[in-house]
């Protein structure tokens, strides 16, 4: 037994060090996965999201959707909203995105700005202002409608800020546009 004593002492010291480092770590920086459980604890009961999809009239149309495990932390919630938006309309409205797309990351600053980092678009510019307008404001309106604390949204692509996809100025976070929503 005595031959294991140095090993046990070393293991104990390392364990204490690990504990100290873990406790001394800065606030977790990947809220999607690592936020305090109190912050990201999903709502136990089913919750309703309001999503916005483009219609033939050039306006966004509301679609309610019941989801389970809706996170309360803003970035994780924004990611879930986007994933539901990307999955498409259940009522037959047009897709928001004209190409296959994934959400790489979501994060927020202290000014109410939410950043959604998408995978790269397959083309340099998006054909048609309507496509671009619907893509951007379906994203902005859906996040702000479902994520308390969010006021504006900026879309990024492949981890980078983009000036434009061909028409709209995307270099700053945008406010939601209720005037683009069908009454």
């Amino acid at each position, binding site marked *: 037994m005595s031959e294991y004593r140095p*090993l046990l002492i*070393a*293991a104990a010291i*390392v*364990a204490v*060090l*690990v504990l100290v*480092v*873990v406790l001394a*770590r*800065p*606030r*977790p*920086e*990947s809220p999607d996965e*690592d936020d305090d459980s109190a912050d990201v604890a999903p709502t136990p009961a089913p919750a309703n999201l309001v999503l916005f999809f*483009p*219609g*033939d*009239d*050039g306006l966004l149309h509301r679609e309610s959707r019941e989801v389970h495990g809706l996170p309360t932390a803003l970035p994780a919630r924004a990611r879930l909203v986007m994933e539901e938006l990307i999955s498409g309309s259940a009522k037959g*409205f*047009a*897709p*928001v*995105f004209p190409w296959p797309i994934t959400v*790489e*990351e979501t*994060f*927020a*600053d*202290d*000014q109410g700005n939410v*950043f959604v*980092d998408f995978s790269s678009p397959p083309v*340099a*510019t998006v*054909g*048609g*202002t*309507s*496509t671009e*307008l*619907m893509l951007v404001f379906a994203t902005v309106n859906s996040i702000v409608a479902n994520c308390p604390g969010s006021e504006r949204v900026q879309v*990024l692509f492949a*981890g*980078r*800020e983009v*000036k*434009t996809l*061909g*028409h*709209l*100025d995307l*270099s*700053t976070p*945008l*406010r939601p546009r209720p*005037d*683009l929503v069908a009454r």
Partner: protein
Amino acid sequence: MRTRFLFALLGLMLCFSTPVSAVPVMTPRGPVEVFSRADLFDVAELVRLTGAEVGFSAAAGSYTALLGEREVQFTPGGTLAVVDGRLVPLPGPIRVVEDRPVATMATINALLAPLGWSLRGTAAAPQLVPLAAAPGLEISLTRSPTGTLVVARGSSLRPRMDPSPGELRLTYGAPLRLAAPPTGEGEVLGAEVRDTTLLLRLAPGVEAVSTYPLDNPPRYVVRLAATAPTADLVTHRVGPLVVLDPGHGGEDHGARGPGGELEKDIVLSVARMTAARLQATGIEARLTREGDENLSLQDRTALANRLRADAFVSIHANASTARGARGAETYFMSADASDAVAARAAATENLDASPDTVQLILWDLAHVANLNASSRLARAIQGRLNHLQGIRDRGVRQAPFVVLTGATMPAALVEIGFLSNREEAARLASRPAQDSIAAALTEAILSFLRAPEPSPEPEP
């Protein structure tokens, strides 16, 4: 066995101690972990890595970096910095994410350049290097019968062009240096680099008329030409001048119809027809592009600004993921975007002047005043298009379009129909339909130019 166990535990400890969102930044002294999110990096950490002394004033809410004789102040939430006491606009804002001041590489480079440093590489593998190691630009000049071709090689970044009388500024997203004096002959009197900007001093009577990037190797080309005809047009013209902007062009096809119809071809044809009709009525009309060429969005409004046009109309054809979408719609600048862009543009205008809040306010007021006229122009266009047979009215809307942000005159963007709709695509590709759209646009522009400005409402 015992050693393996210890290494495993130590490895576990190291994993825990590494921040999840840190990226290794390569510095001359080796890699250093710096907080990052997407393409945003911790500004204060990077500035400290240059050796600068960085302080934060809670009262002012701003950071001050001191390195030798240079002083840089920046404020989280702001889009301006103070470099050696002078106000400098930043390419983007400094944000606060998880209590840290963060910004894009371009914005950080605007702060690092005065300190003699540069952040290069990609978001995943950034490198902090002394400015002396920044990419060297090679400038070549070629004289042609129509002017001078300036080719800048040595950087893969696409610069922003800011023309002003007698000079041309090309602002890149990273610090630069001039590898050698310009070679060749042309109407350029001199070139110098200031931090992230290439400054070309132009011969009298010369201006930039178009710019475009080239690949393999990456180059940026500026075409210079004599300004005399433009100057004559501005100073001696008797009637109004309208600039028509056929959207897209060159490699940028814009929207594509099911039968292969291309937006860039259709809108060029409509713009030419509209220009011919306007000129037939005595209105001077100019196109931003005469043929199938690529032109940046900023260059399009820059032309209209230089010509001091009375109206700017950007002509586009639409597309949508909604297959049933059809009809015409017209846009003008949204007020939110206008305010933000106007403030930034005003700050840029004052780059070499002391900060002047009054100028910022005046610029903003002028821009907002144009919004009313732009709204009138957009309504005139949409109203005339609604009279055309087979066109569905989708109304007038506001949106932050890049091509409208820089315009200093009433400006509108018109979508003449949907190429994603098979019926509309076939109609838009036909010359009779294009001619009737051109006739409607001409009538709308004429009615806008001839209608008196609405008088301000009397005060109660």
